[in-house]
């Protein structure tokens, strides 16, 4: 597996974990605030494992923290979907679902990988992602079917996020079919439609990001950049 691809997986997990953690303390229901914080923790944990592995391949004193805190946005390889602002709770839920529906078959496949390190990370993460997928699927259905207002909000969320779904799958063609099946099935239960004729936006893997990632990294990397070379 190439270093670039491992960083892609790690950046995906970190950026989404970071975004979800912005909800901690501000969620709509205490139990769900806890659930989303849990998902954040899982994703950041996955990112740490992947960065640690990448760091051993990169050498030159790289660590999980130099990779997370000292790369600029054009070196980040995450898909664009995960860097978008949280929006309302429905958008966050929809994004988590679209992402987990990709991450689940991905880790299933990597659980059989010949790369021992990746294999171990994938096996551990698969258990977590199984829960993320179930939780987010249930919420997509609940909000899709709940009230007229929640349905309208979920429809907006789909429309806002759909243009970024091609970019999500661009470097994981193996997962595409399973992702499509899962999305179709859950959308059917939620009475939501897949938008037609959408202009797709991509470029995350190549480092062509939105300004949202720049803002996010400015905040996240602030201390490491302001006081370089010290221990925290």
């Amino acid at each position, binding site marked *: 597996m190439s270093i670039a691809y491992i960083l892609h997986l790690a950046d995906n997990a970190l950026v989404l974990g970071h975004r979800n953690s912005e909800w901690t303390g501000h969620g709509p229901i205490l139990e769900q605030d806890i659930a989303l914080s849990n998902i954040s923790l899982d994703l950041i944990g996955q990112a740490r494992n992947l960065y640690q592995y990448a760091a051993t391949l990169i050498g030159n004193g790289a660590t999980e923290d130099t990779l997370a805190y000292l790369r600029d946005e054009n070196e980040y390889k995450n898909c664009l979907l995960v860097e978008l602002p949280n929006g309302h709770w429905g958008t966050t839920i929809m994004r988590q679902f679209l992402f987990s529906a990709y991450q689940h078959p991905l880790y299933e496949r990597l659980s059989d990988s010949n790369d021992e390190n990746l294999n171990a990370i994938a096996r551990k993460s698969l258990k977590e992602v199984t829960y993320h997928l179930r939780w987010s699927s249930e919420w997509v259905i609940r909000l899709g079917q*709940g009230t007229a207002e929640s349905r309208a909000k979920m429809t907006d969320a789909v429309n806002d996020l759909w243009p970024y779904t091609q970019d999500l799958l661009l470097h994981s063609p193996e997962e595409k079919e399973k992702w499509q099946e899962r999305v179709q099935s859950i959308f059917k239960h939620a009475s939501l439609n897949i938008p037609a004729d959408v202009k797709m936006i991509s470029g995350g893997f190549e480092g062509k990001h939105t300004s949202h990632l720049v803002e996010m990294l400015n905040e996240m990397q602030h201390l490491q950049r302001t006081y370089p070379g010290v221990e925290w």
Partner: protein
Amino acid sequence: MPSEEVIFQDKVDREIRIEPKDWMPADYRKTLIRQISQHAHSEIVGMLPEGHWITRAPTLKRKATLIAKVQDEAGHGLYLYAAAETLGITRDEMVDQLHAGKAKYSSIFNYPTLTWADIGAIGWLVDGAAIMNQVPLTRTSYGPYARAMVRICKEESFHQRQGFEILLVLSRGSKEQKAMCQDAINRWWWPSVMMFGPNDESSPHTAQSMKWKVKRFTNDELRQRFIDICADQVKVLGMQLPDPDLKWNEETQHYDFGPINWEEFWQVVNGNGPCNKERMTARIKAHEEGQWVREAALAFAGKMSSRAGVRG
């Protein structure tokens, strides 16, 4: 036959826990609802000042630890709301009281978190003071409250060690980090000392709460214990507590300390602290913006159960 009140007090005296279905004096119930809901609200509002640093935590490990900590606080809020509910009030009612300004929460959370060192200082001092208050509550007379506190105290002492460790790293770091560490201690020390509440002579409920064994030590006893411990721990950090009168007293075997600014304490309690407005605005905003989610969840649950009803 002895009166219900006599039986109740006899149980309390013999250290038998009072359980939800037992008879209890109306004022005992009222006191507990006030205290437990205040405690629950403190956990929930307390998520905000620390949550503020999740996105800026300086390493991935610190970020994960901080998320886990703030999440623990949400969990504590949940157990405590559940404990209060056994006394005949709903979580919604308690949350409404908080948002309407009728219920209080710990004033400590009305101070801002300005630097990363504040996350350490909150863990060491604020959680340290909380533990001092809470450990005796694991033996409080009301069963559900006591049991909730057992779990909470275990997690809190973990948080306290993490906080101290954050400060320890800073205290051994660069000039800027050391200054950050001292500054945070300076700002959090007196508000933490005030967390034990007014002096015993100005604490009107203490005597009754001690008789009911809701409380087991007075505010001043717990405060002294906290100061004694911190005065020693701060030496490990090589930092100073911001109290020129702090001095070991051979005779009392305790540290003497300077006067507490009660004027500031009451100002913050009464809503005029640096962040009172900000905290309530954030809680109310989260609640209002979550309204549609709660309504949708309720509507969906209704649809599911009516479908199940048709099938059944």
